[in-house]
């Protein structure tokens, strides 16, 4: 039984991949994400073999041999920041963290959103109304101002911050979209068939509704990765997060030390991390756009 199921899954994935490959924008996104993945994976190798941890540590490293911030040299390919830490090392170290943050918070969002969306669609009535009103309120919430206010009072650390982003997102607009999708699944005949065959509500939701909503959830996961990373970068830039190193933090460091006033001269302090944030977020967004054509057949070419 599971063999057949496995084969079917593989075949479905292969078909979807074929559709996805037609979208050039989506493929561009995948390539960029893969490059970032390699870049991030290089970090443990570099620090353990090539780089001296005392000099190249992204948070406490210091190079006593040059004046800081130093422009790119052979020892520091992207220069150093105002307190003597290597920019390239920071960039590499942060890549893994950004992946973790984005994927973790998007995963939380999508799990919550999918469960609430399907449950609301399946049961309807009070459950439905309640969660939809909650989603309306959440969509109104100006998150960044709110997190700035919260963050300036309690310094949030990495994991709580990812959780907060994920949970806040999970109750928001995503539930409305996934509920609409689940509703269209719920009225199909095989759901009735499953119920007649004696399937419990839990079984129907788990085995029939959720698998049909998942592609759309996956699509929204991509968009959520983008927004999570952008929020983190913005809040780190304003210095209201308690995170030791991230791309936003790198720009924050340059900003507090006053080097952003002389923008063109100290380009290596802001350009690498700024480009990294933008490219990384854009890549996930592009993958989302590509997936959109897989999930939404009306967008495909004739």
């Amino acid at each position, binding site marked *: 039984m599971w063999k057949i199921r496995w084969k079917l899954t593989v075949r479905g994935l292969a078909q979807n991949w074929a559709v996805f490959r037609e979208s050039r924008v989506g493929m561009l996104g995948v390539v960029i994400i893969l490059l970032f993945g390699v870049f991030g994976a290089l970090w443990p190798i570099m620090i353990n073999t090539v780089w001296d941890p005392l000099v190249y540590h992204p948070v406490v490293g210091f190079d006593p041999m040059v004046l800081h911030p130093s422009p790119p040299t052979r020892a520091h390919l992207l220069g150093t920041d105002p307190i003597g830490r290597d920019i390239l090392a920071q960039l590499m170290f942060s890549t893994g963290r950004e992946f973790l943050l984005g994927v973790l918070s998007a995963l939380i969002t999508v799990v919550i959103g999918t469960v609430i969306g399907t449950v609301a669609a399946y049961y309807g009535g009070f459950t439905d109304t309640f969660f939809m009103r909650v989603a309306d309120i959440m969509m*109104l*919430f100006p*998150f*960044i101002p709110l997190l700035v206010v919260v963050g*300036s009072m309690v310094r949030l650390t990495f994991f709580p911050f990812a959780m907060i982003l994920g949970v806040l997102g999970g109750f928001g607009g995503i539930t409305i979209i996934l509920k609409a999708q689940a509703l269209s699944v719920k009225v199909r005949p095989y759901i009735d068939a499953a119920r007649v065959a004696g399937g419990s509500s839990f079984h129907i939701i788990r085995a029939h509704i959720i698998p049909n909503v998942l592609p759309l959830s996956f699509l929204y996961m991509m968009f959520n990765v983008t927004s999570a990373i952008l929020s983190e970068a913005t809040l780190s830039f304003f210095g209201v997060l308690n995170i030791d190193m991230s791309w936003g933090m790198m720009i924050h460091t340059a900003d507090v030390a006053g080097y952003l006033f002389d923008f*063109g001269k100290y380009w290596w302090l802001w350009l690498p991390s700024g480009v990294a944030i933008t490219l990384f977020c854009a890549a996930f967004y592009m993958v989302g756009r590509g997936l959109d054509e897989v999930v939404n057949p*009306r967008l495909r070419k004739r």
Partner: protein
Amino acid sequence: MRRYLLNRLGQVVLTLIIYITLVYFLLQAMPGDITQMYLANPRIPQAAREELQKQLGLDQGVVMQYLNYLKNFFSGELGVSFSHYPRPVWDILMERLPRTFVLFLTAHVLSFYLGYLLGRIIAWRRGKVVDYAATVVGITFWTAFYPLLSLVLIWVFAYTLKLLPLNQFIEPRLWQGAPFPTNTVFGYMVYGGGAVAVGLFLVFYAFLRGLKRSRRNTARAWLSAFAIIAVALAVAWRTGLLVYIWDIASHMILPVCTLTLISFAGTMLLMRDSMLETVQEDYVMAARAKGLPDTIVRDRYAARTAMLPTVTSLVLSLASSMSGGLVTETMFSWPGLGQILFHSALANDYPLATGALAFTGVFLLIAHFVADILYAVLDPRITYAGQPAVEG
């Protein structure tokens, strides 16, 4: 229609109360309270501190405090700001709100229009180079790291090229001997701009919709549009306001451009997708088969219908653009709601932070409400009796 509006209004008020409750308890749950700010000061005796607590109502229970807060909020009593000491919060917010509003409205309208124009073009030329280029560039701006983007723009246009003023709302040196206070000028500017906009709208509406579409009528429309603008400028010149208005307006250019750049792609991509769906409809094919020119089929047949989902998204993007507004205002030192929120949060100015956060909510709710009505007016298929149109 009236029932629908009343229903929506009721929902808005209910949501507002829930929102304020959330904001209040969130800030209540933060560590520390106002009286503790004075704990370190040895010159305040214990008795005075207790007296202060009593005056501020902090000796009552949380529920009583909350009810008091709600009562005060709806009677417009938001307390006194700490960081701008003797000024009441309400005063500060009322001064800041129009500035944020003007900045947003301009940027939103511009980015919506730009996105609409580009979206219909790239959908029409799907799969061509224009499509890919616009999509990739649009996504890059859409996901750009805004603080940095604004810094780059400031650096290029204000610092290196010196085309535009650096930052802030006004140029203090120019205003030193000014015969008018800033807010009055800003008020005139807003009303004047609004009047001109309404005038232009009416002119174009009358000429392009009501009258026959001919070259002569189009020329007349443009002429009267220029006449209206010229009259407005002449009035401003005669009263001596023009220099000051130009000063404020030139300070607005950079923030508006930044906001437009980061948000046009949302409308553009949505417009593209929605156009791709409408292009496949039968009536579009019929229009083409009739032999109408491509641009007319695109602009008057397909784009008209395809615009509806973008209006919905305009509503949904309001909240996120408010977040963008905080960043933009802080980066450009534009003295609006977002900037005051940021500064008061960093300065532990609780009354001002709560007030600003609550006002952001009010602002969003009203915008939401207006957009809902707009949507109902635009789409004749919506019936007012049932559920709001956004759902499902």
